[in-house]
């Protein structure tokens, strides 16, 4: 939705702006947690203390915007990182009634505290369960990865990408990243499963993944659909203007038609 808007934007400068994203390559990730530490530092969050271990599922929460996990898969132990996927058509942003969750034209999905009323409908709607709410605060915030939006608009890379020692995460335009992912798959036959996760899921996401093991062995929800989530409520929303025009007209018509009926009844009373 926001994607279509920015693609149709009138000024030529804005036309040049493409969605940015991050390519994560599980074959290059060693689970060092440098990205987690950089993320915590960049967003004033406590440094993560727990270690990455097979069999222990770590989840993002209101104090940690990204986590690395280690899974025992059919291809051996594989690391995988979770954070906001920065969907092309984010359900959270479509759900938000104040546009606090917002898909920027640069690609990151950001949260704006001055607009948010804390209804948590974004959390209900997000298929990846990404937005986290500070339940124990009188002034609660939504915590989620914002792809370091403040750095991106200054032309810098997200802090996690900069911190990664093994180039397991690369930053770029989404188009470049998909091309790079395809290149890696073509140049290293047999290394990767034949799927770029995020290319199609939920209508396409800003984070795209390459992996040596099937994605359903890496904690990714296999139920998710490949089309956009906001499209699910589109039919309902499109019917609203029609109902708003037609129903009052119909009601007024019936009201006029039954008027005689009433005066007769009143006489009988």
């Amino acid at each position: 939705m926001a994607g279509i808007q920015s693609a149709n934007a009138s000024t030529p400068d804005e036309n040049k702006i493409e969605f940015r994203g991050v390519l994560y390559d599980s074959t290059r990730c060693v689970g060092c947690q440098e990205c987690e530490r950089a993320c915590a530092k960049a967003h004033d969050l406590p440094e993560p203390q727990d270690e990455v271990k097979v069999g222990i599922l770590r989840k993002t929460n209101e104090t940690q915007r990204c986590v690395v996990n280690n899974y025992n898969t059919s291809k051996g132990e594989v690391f995988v990182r979770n954070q906001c996927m920065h969907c092309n058509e984010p359900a959270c942003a479509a759900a938000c009634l104040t546009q606090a969750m917002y898909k920027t034209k640069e690609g990151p999905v950001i949260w704006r505290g001055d607009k948010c009323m804390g209804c948590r409908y974004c959390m209900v709607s997000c298929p990846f369960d990404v937005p986290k709410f500070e339940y124990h605060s009188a002034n609660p915030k939504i915590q989620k990865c914002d792809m370091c939006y403040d750095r991106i608009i200054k032309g810098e890379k997200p802090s996690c990408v900069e911190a990664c020692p093994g180039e397991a995460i690369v930053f770029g335009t989404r188009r470049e990243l998909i091309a790079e992912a395809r290149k890696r798959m073509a140049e290293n036959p047999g290394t990767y499963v034949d799927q770029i996760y995020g290319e199609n899921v939920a209508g396409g996401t800003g984070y795209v993944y390459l992996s040596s093991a099937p994605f359903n062995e890496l904690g990714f929800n296999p139920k998710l659909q490949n089309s956009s989530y906001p499209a699910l409520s589109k039919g309902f929303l499109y019917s609203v203007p029609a109902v708003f025009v037609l129903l009052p007209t119909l009601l007024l018509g019936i009201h006029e038609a039954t008027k005689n009926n009433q005066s007769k009844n009143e006489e009988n009373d």
Partner: protein
Amino acid sequence: MTSPAYPIVSKDNDGSSIWSFLKNELRPKGKWFTPFNIISIPIMLLGLGLIVIRFINGIGSVTNLTQETPWGIWIGFDVVTGVAFAGGAYVLTFMVYILKMNKYHSIVRITVLNGFLAYVFYAGALLLDLGRPWNVINPIIGNSFGTSSVLFLVAWHFMLYMLAELIEFSPAIAEWLGARRAHKILSGMTIAAVIFGITLSTLHQSGLGALYLMAKDKIHPLWYSEFIPVLFLVSSIFAGLSMVIFEGTISHKVFSDQISKKNHHAEKGILHGLSKICAGAMFAYFFLQLLVFIHGKHWNLLNTPMGYWYLLEMIGFVLIPMLMFFYSYRTNNIFMIRLAAILTMLGIILNRLNVTVIGFKWDAATHYIPTWMEIVVTLAVIFTEIWIFRWVINRMPVLRDSPKWAAEENH
């Protein structure tokens, strides 16, 4: 017919006494030590204390909400179920003001009052659930319209519908205050408010279901379909009317002194009519559910615990009360109508909670179960609503007939 305790007519157009009149009216009437008061007052006070704690220490200090289940009973029961029960107002105003079914005229006011208070208090309950309630004006004042959001639509419809219901009810307030001019103007606005109100109700009753359309992978497939909005709308018809039957039963006992003989006698006929409509709406609903089920191809899910739960809801709380409604209007069985209404209401609670709480993340490792504090706050909200409801009925011509001057004006 006005009871002597309410000297409304005597202070007509007398500006100076209106304040002493209001002051007098604000005072409680009747006995204090009734069973209802003894139960409700401590719960309301406890609820108030919990609300204070919630605003100091955050929502997590009183609720069991988690990152996976961000909406609990404050939304699933207070708002989603409560609004379905408040649906009686739009159905009855449609029948009386649009279809001119004058038989039901005597219960319109109390139903609209019930609906109006329900919306006020559920919107209030919504504020408790908002993490940052001070930003609640954002979607209203227009600095950040999230027009792609179903919740935006629902929020606006709540506000506008409250206004419509207030206008529909306002002639009763004017009669209470003896404001004849205002009464004339406000009565003239009724039909517009009714048409507007029915339209808004159609959209937000279905909109409450549409809220969950994006949670496709989180709701149990037996309760998720793209038809949730239609199912919510159709079920709000008999949910609202069952509430009217239930509330009418209680009102006729508790406020029997207020109800004229004529209206007392009309009650049976009204109940019969309502049970007929409930039966019809429930038949349509059951048929829709059946179509949705067959369309969804979920036969294999029936033989699971959630499947039995689904069958219990569909058969025990839709099919059976529907048959009871059919049977009771054929056999003039008032008791069975009331029983059917209660079963139907339980079914609505079950259905709304199945979509919003029980079936939501049904497959998660840990389940959301509300804390006792969430339940106490919910009860406190309901009791406060009943207090206001009682206060209004004891003062304004809701159940009792309008004063003579107002009745004459309508002719």
